[in-house]
């Protein structure tokens, strides 16, 4: 029960109006709140009861008001009564429609919920966002760039010797006319270095293209994410520290190792492995008996790359890394065929939403 609306014995018109408005507002609320016929009847008696109903009080007081105020007060009283009566009737109908109290408390609670469709991000997006989150803690922001690129941004500026076997790993899709589809996200390194003065700490996600036939383990378009860190005095120690920290966060506290590698745009270059999660380093089919699984390529940015982007390579140094979120998604979710990531079968995408 609610507290009663206090109405003085001899109210002014303003007081009368104010209390009446409060009462009808409360009454409407109470009616709407009634969960079943019994509760609604109790509320009816409280507000509209013939003898003790709260509205009855206002009808009595009506006669005690100054004469000139009575017509308006009367109109208001009638309006309030009509409003309450309407609200009561509306709720009565609603409750009738419910039948009994089955909506508020269904008899069989094991029956299924009424669901909406659930949305979901693509697994590759989830991997990218997780990587992004870890690098944000270390002060990295996001840079992106075009997928259709010039030969210079994709190769020349990144220290690829022309006509060299190093190009064989970048089997390129060329566009009719000018340009090509970038084979890696590294052109965005150059664009970023040309646009912003160091210090630079960016993460570069994006789609890249290779002239690889679409089969269970290759796709001609896939996602890459790379990082670039350039400032005075940035060293191989910073590279190792940041990437080791990343790997520990992303893969759990598994041992990591760096081994020599080659990329035209970094020197020294290093590939990073994490201990095989399947065999725990003992050697198995997944890790080709080595006990290690490759996760990313990295290295100190080659001075020629800095010079191509107009950066003083004596004053500044730094590192970069790149990895494939698609490959990570595949191993993480145990997806047997890379094409599943592209097919867009709702039965796959809905699994992610569960």
């Amino acid at each position, binding site marked *: 029960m609610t507290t009663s609306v206090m109405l003085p014995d001899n109210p002014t018109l303003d007081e009368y109006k104010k209390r009446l408005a409060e009462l009808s507002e409360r009454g409407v609320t109470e009616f709407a709140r009634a969960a079943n016929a019994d509760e609604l009847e109790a509320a009816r008696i409280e507000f509209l009861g013939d003898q003790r109903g709260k509205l009855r009080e206002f009808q009595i007081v009506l006669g005690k008001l100054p004469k000139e105020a009575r017509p308006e007060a009367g109109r208001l009283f009638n309006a309030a009564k009509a409003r309450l009566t309407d609200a009561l009737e509306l709720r009565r109908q609603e409750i009738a429609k419910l039948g009994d109290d089955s909506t508020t408390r269904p008899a069989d609670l094991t029956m299924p919920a009424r*669901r*909406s469709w659930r949305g979901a991000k693509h697994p590759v997006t989830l991997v990218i966002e997780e990587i992004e989150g870890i690098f944000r803690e270390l002060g990295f922001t996001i840079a992106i760039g*075009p997928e259709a690129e010039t030969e210079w941004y994709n190769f*020349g500026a990144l220290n690829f010797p022309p006509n060299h076997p190093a190009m064989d790993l970048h089997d390129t899709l060329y566009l009719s006319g000018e340009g090509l589809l970038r084979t890696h996200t590294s052109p965005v390194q150059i664009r970023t270095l040309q646009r912003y003065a160091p*210090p630079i700490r960016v993460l570069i996600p994006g789609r890249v293209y290779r002239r690889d036939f679409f089969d269970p383990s290759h796709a001609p378009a896939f996602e890459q994410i790379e990082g670039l860190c350039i400032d005075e005095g940035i060293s*191989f120690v910073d590279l190792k520290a940041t990437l080791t920290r990343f790997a520990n966060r992303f893969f759990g506290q598994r041992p990591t190792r760096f081994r020599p590698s080659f990329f035209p745009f970094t020197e020294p270059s290093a590939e990073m492995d994490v201990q095989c999660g399947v065999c725990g380093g003992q050697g198995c089919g997944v890790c080709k008996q080595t006990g290690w699984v490759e996760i990313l390529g990295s290295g100190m940015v080659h001075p020629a790359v800095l010079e191509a982007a107009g950066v003083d390579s004596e004053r500044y140094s730094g590192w970069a890394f790149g990895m494939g979120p698609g490959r990570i998604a595949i191993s993480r979710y145990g997806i047997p065929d890379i094409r599943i990531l592209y097919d867009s079968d709702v039965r796959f995408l809905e699994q992610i939403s569960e």
Partner: protein
Amino acid sequence: MNVSYEWLRALVPFRETPAKLRDLITSRVATVDELVPLRQDLAPIVVARVVEAGRHPDSDHLWVTKVDAGTGELLDVVCGAPNVEAGKLYPFAPTGTTMPNGLKIERRRIRGQTSNGMLCSPRELGLGEDHEGILELSVDAAPGTPFLKVMPAGDTKLVIDVSPNRPDLLSHLGVAREIAAAVDSPVTLPRIDGADAAIPTASRVRAEGRTGGVDVRVQEEGLVRRYMAAVIRGIRVGPSPEWLVRRLEAVGSRSINNVVDATNYVLHELGQPTHAFDLQRLGGGAIVVRRARAGERIVTLDGIERTLADTMTVIADAQRPQAVAGIMGGRDSEVSESTTEILLEVASFDPARTRATRRSLGLSTDASYRFERGVDPLLAPAALERTVRLIVAVAGGRVDDAPVDVYAGDSLPMPLPLRVSRVRTILGDVVPADEVASLLRGVGFDARVESNDVVRVMTPSWRIDVQREIDLIEEVARLRGYDSFPDEIRPFRAGNVPDDPQWLLARRVRDALVGAGLLETRPMPFVRGADTGYVRVANPLAENEAFLRRDILDTLSRRAEYNLARMQGDLRLFEIGATFLPDESLPHEELHVGALIMGRRRPPHFTDPKSDEFDRAMTFDAWDAKALAELVCDQAYGPGAVSFVAGSSDELWELRVGERRVGIVRALSLDAPVWAKPAFGVELSLGIVDSTNVAPAGQHAYRGAEYAPVRVKPFRAIPSQPASTMDLALLVPQSVDAGTVERAIRDVAGDLLESILLFDEHSGGKIETGSRSLAWRLTFRHPERTLSAKEMEGRRTNVLRHLEKTLNVRPRST
């Protein structure tokens, strides 16, 4: 590249097991992808423990044993070896094993006793001639462990992933140099019996010379950096000795004959490809290095006739090509059983030309692989000497005349100064000058400490990858070991680059769509396309998907069809990705969001009425598409910034910002089965992707950070007064659309109008033709008081009068 463990051991002494050697090479030099034991025939053999051994009741020399082979039960095995002893470990062949000699082990009875497998002697395993007894294993291994794991038997092949900048590693010599530095042992070429023939000193010429009666000429500079030739007469072509066959087998190369095998051996040992021509098949007593003539033909060793272009280099006799330089010899002058004299070629061909020829012929060989990456011209004399001696050792014969050496010489490399301070800057740790110099010297550099800060370095001729100081710093890092550097997080400065606004926008739109229950896709962006209006891929993977998409709905439609073909008809897919239009230079690239909906609005529920009408009401329609469009438009351009203009034909709405078209809402026509529900699509541009050059090569164009503006809607007070509502049921001529009526209502309803909701539409029945009935609920609210009935009435009158006057819209009589 394949190397043999035993071959490496012949070049440099080391104790490491194959697995340890793999780790050593991987951590310092290049990644070893695979370790292949060459005795895979021993793979089924396991370590087993003899638990009991007793005399065979019916035999003097047989034993009946119980063997634990790790299977969880003891096996009865009969054994004839005198040395079998309970408690000891032996190699064991379980039933089903095929032994190296072809014998298949089966369960059988030997003089009344069952035998389930065989305990093996060294000879039975092909590990030697000893068959006096079974091989006792003094190792600590559990029964059931594969025998090959505990006993390195036979050779092991290492598959090394040599990076394209390190051609010096494409030989056993090159890998051995790196191992030698790691284990601190010298590299020496293994002695080969009989390989000590005296060879006269080669005569060096600039372009043309003569050896053994053959004219050797290089017709044009730039075709070959060095060309050496020697004539050997009196050879007998035949099979190679066993050791040579084994060596080649270990690296996956098939034995052909003693002469060819000798050249292959040197290729794998020193990294120098060589070629032997049958001298009697060369016409005109001449060998010429020249450009091919366009259209000239040659049948190569693989039996294929190839047509040459004038960009290619050939080795010709006086008349015609006898080899494609650096790639493959010709069948005409192939060394055969009847060959008795040969001309041996040891050359260093131009990398770029070899690469171009290899690509255009589609013919890659061990030789072309090395020439493309660069073969050290200074290697040629030693390689020639080694090959000649090996041929003479295995095929007999003698060198006729001094070999000829066409070589203009190379300029000596300049010494590189390496600053110790720079090593510290790049690597982040102090490596003293002495240590720097000694690490470099270990792998063949001539390094001299010149001062505390400077080490002066001469690069060995085989290290063509080392050209700048940074290349030497990499050497220091890997030779010292990447593990030796700390990995502590050091202080850093915050970066200058703000988050890319387009990335933030994409994320916002993605979150909104996922929140609305849509599924994100990331399909392939290639489409069927057309010759105009699309960007074409010049070298597409498939001709039926040779174009880049211009809109995402194209891709999503195909994905919807993919799902429909799998009986999936309730779809709500979206993608955020790049789209492309042809432009002057690079394509015009835009980031778009596309969304496709069809089928049910939500999963079915047991409370749902079972009626067609309800099913229809639960199916996605144009209004859902409009809501989706409003959602993405509000996220991307701000609430109300995009106007929805009626589109033409299958376009429902064109989305515009001002006069600019930024997107579309449309009904999609799919290749769909009959049961499929209608599909609707939304496509919206999230902005142009800038692909112009930021600055010319070698320059920058710094500018300040641009941050995406944060959109804020100011606070509006939560209403404290009750609202008053008014329903307007209107008779609207067909020519007047609802939006117009709504705008007219807003025009005169006054400031207190809080919201306006269209809640009913119908026509027919009592509604006169040419009109329809539309009903709106208007909600008014005064911030400080309740609106009186009179005030509401006044508003109703105003609105109705205005609608009638301007639009001929009247209230519907009830």
